[in-house]
């Protein structure tokens, strides 16, 4: 029996009680799969917290992280939705060929969106980039809510 991703995230964030924390720690000491998953979560969180310090508004990393966690449990392609929205912004403001310059092989969807936002911030100014970013995030939230209500 392995731990769920939610339980691992809660353990990682220290959101569980001391008894449960000790139980999870005991399980992690024995289970290689769960400890590997925990390492992966910590790496993901580290990456997102470093991107959070580069000017993203509060809540940004939490939203993307929850999306990333949610995405791994499902196969409906929220990742492609994030990517699609990041690409459409770049296409509109820069042009279609610029998408291939922004998108690098092996990049995660969240990183694509972060890079698109960084480019727009440089070329349009912070105020405009922030407005674009908020619109993309609210669109993603709506999409996720709509999907969850239909599943």
């Amino acid at each position, binding site marked *: 029996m392995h731990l769920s991703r939610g339980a691992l995230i809660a353990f990682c964030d220290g959101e569980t009680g001391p008894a449960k924390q000790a139980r999870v720690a005991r399980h992690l000491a024995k289970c290689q799969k769960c400890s590997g998953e925990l390492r992966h979560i910590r790496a993901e969180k580290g990456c997102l917290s470093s991107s959070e310090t580069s000017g993203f508004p509060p809540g940004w990393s939490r939203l993307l992280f929850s999306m990333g966690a949610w995405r791994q449990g499902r196969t409906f392609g929220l990742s492609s939705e994030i990517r699609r929205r990041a690409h459409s912004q770049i296409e509109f403001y820069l042009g279609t060929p610029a998408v291939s310059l922004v998108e690098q092989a092996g990049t995660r969807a969240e990183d694509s969106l972060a890079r698109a936002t960084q480019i727009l911030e440089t070329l349009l*100014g912070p105020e405009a980039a922030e407005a*674009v970013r908020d619109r993309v995030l609210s669109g993603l939230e709506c999409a996720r809510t709509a999907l969850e209500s239909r599943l």
Partner: protein
Amino acid sequence: MMRRADFEGIESAPRWIVIFLAANLAAGFLVAYVWNAAGNLFSMQASSGSTSAFSVTVLTAVDLWLSIEVLRRFPRRAPLHSAWLWILLAAAVRFMSETLASLAVCGGSTALALCVPIQWAMLAAAMAQVLRVFHRLGFWRGPRAADWAVCAVVWLFTLRRSGVLVAAWLDGQPTAGADWISLAGLPILCALFLAAMLLRQSLASMGNGLVTRGWAALVYAIFLTGAAEMALWIIPHYFHSLPLLLLASLARLPMAAAFALVPAWQVAAQRHAIQPGSAEPEELPTGLPAMAE
């Protein structure tokens, strides 16, 4: 079909500038046609020249206003702040020179001769900053053979003009101060041309978005500046019958429009991003909810 909303607000400035340019060019060419058909019976140098000069002044004023609008959106620490500041200063110098020339406060040619190299230097500083930012963002592309060829033409023109002026001076012929000032600006024009060609390559690799169109307008503006500079020097030497003042004003009109389009496209992009009601660029019906269905 064009929506009514497309012509409302400051974000529709690019359309208005293009319409203004088209109307002025059409009027200018009509005057030239009538003048030609009438067998050069009347002098149109003063009438049509002053009308075009007024239109150019209007365009430079619009350019200045839009540049201020753009700069307001870039805080001091933003990477493109200094580039837009140089573009704004160049627009201010252009507006000042055009105003002085049309009002004839001082000698029109002297005012223009003094202001032209200054604004070229400002534009070169802006271009250097823009190219640095593009390089950092990964949009940098090296020049191609055609770009070097275009730059070589400008360099040859510079050498030829320098040679003619220096030869005239050595022969003891009178040379105007404006000629020397103009000559001093030509190396800056060469550098500006090279930067424009580099920017053109970067833009070609990016596409045709709202932001890209603004920078493409700057490339065209610099190209038109160089072309006009060469044409207005060559025409009096080889085509004596052409009305030079009309041609000069007609050449300055597309140049001023291209310069005004630079901040106009940028303002359009910024306004589109900031407007709370504006939709995402692409709302595909086959989005995530549709996939869930």
